């Protein structure tokens, strides 16, 4: 993988190799982040695909000023999900555990995975929106607190505070089986 600046330059020059590298690196992470936010596998796949097309559309306005490509991409994903949720309010309460889990496992381990994921999804859903944003970007998107701060337009200190309070709430909910 090339360094951030040459990746950004490759993306701006519409170099297919640079785009393919970024896609391979970030598609699963963007997908995970969106899946956790919208709770539906098919919708998440479509939205994640659209995020990369949106990124391609807006690459000409991307200026390399030390902002990591990851933060730029997740900002697009974050805003895209906000738009989606605004226009698809009715679709938002889906059976999360059924739609999210991949089906290529044996029934026993699949049941264990369902339990884990549904518990986590339910616990995350009960956080405040600001806490949710941080937890989803940090643990599903795999971003650092500095990158999360850039995506959300907050200070790194504020993100750390939200991370702390979110983990306290998550811990409480996970230990009580996801119930509030």
């Amino acid at each position, binding site marked *: 993988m090339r360094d951030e600046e040459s990746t950004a330059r490759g993306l701006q020059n*519409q*170099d*297919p*190799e640079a*785009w*393919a590298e970024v*896609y*391979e690196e970030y*598609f*699963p992470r963007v*997908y*995970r982040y969106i*899946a*956790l936010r919208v709770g539906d*596998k098919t919708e*998440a*796949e479509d939205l*994640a*695909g659209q995020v*990369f*097309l949106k990124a*391609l559309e807006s690459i000409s306005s991307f200026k390399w000023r030390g902002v990591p490509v990851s933060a730029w991409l997740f900002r697009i994903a974050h805003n895209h999900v906000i738009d989606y949720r605004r226009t698809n309010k009715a679709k938002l309460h889906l059976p999360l555990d059924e739609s*999210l*889990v*991949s089906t290529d496992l044996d029934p026993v381990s699949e049941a264990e*995975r369902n339990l*884990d*994921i549904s*518990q*986590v*999804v339910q*616990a*995350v859903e009960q956080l405040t929106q600001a806490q949710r944003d941080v*937890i989803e970007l*940090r*643990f*599903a998107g*795999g971003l*650092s*607190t500095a990158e999360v701060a850039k995506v959300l337009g907050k200070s790194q*200190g504020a993100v*750390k*505070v939200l*991370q*702390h309070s979110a*983990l*306290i709430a*998550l*811990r409480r909910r*996970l*230990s009580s089986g996801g119930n509030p």
Partner: protein
Amino acid sequence: MKNKFDDILDICLDRIMVKGDTIEQCLATYPEQAAELEPLLRAALSTAKASSRIEPRPEFQRLAKYRLLSAIEEKSKKKATHRIPFWGWQRRWALALVAVLVIILAGVGTVTASASSLPGDTLYPVKTATENVQGFFTFGSEAKANFYMKLAQRRLDELKSLVARNRDIPQSLLGVMSSETDGAIELLSRNRHVGNESITRLMGLTASQKAVLAGLIEKVPLKAKLKIQEALKRSEYARGQALSLKNRIHQMEKPQVSPSFP
């Protein structure tokens, strides 16, 4: 104090999730905060682990990648068509003049040496300039079509040599090869008295372009793959045109059946 704990929690999370440290290793570094840290780190780890199991379907991931790369290709094409073209007779004259000057200045030895050069080599511009001069002094539509076919075959050979040497394939090489083939087809289709030999040559050229390009797709890196795919599409189209040209000529050659009278 609270800020300090937020920092320690963040450092531990990075150590666990990025560097692969265990929770215990982190707790050992911060024994005073260990009791408060441990449940939070376990909650974070459960969340991260559960999230990591949410995976897109591989077939969708491939499809979305294909869509993205196709969109890049489309965008590049649009960008290329927005550039102001500088073609026409002025360019042809200018190229011919430059080529004559190159030949005079460089000498016959250089021109001969340039014959085996490849795109990217120092002598390659001499080779193309020489071709421009030859083209300029080739007269008659069938002769010119044959000349274009010869050049297109040369581009194909250059492409094979570049791949064999693991060298970059310039987009212009494939574009020029396709344009030369199109030029030959255009000239032959305008000529009502075109010979079988030229048509056979065109059929051979388009068939070998298609075979070579299809064979190269799997061998070249992704960046070159898209260029080859595009050239393959153009060569398939050219092959179709060559076939219909061949059929048209066969139709014209068929003896006309005169109506019989009882």
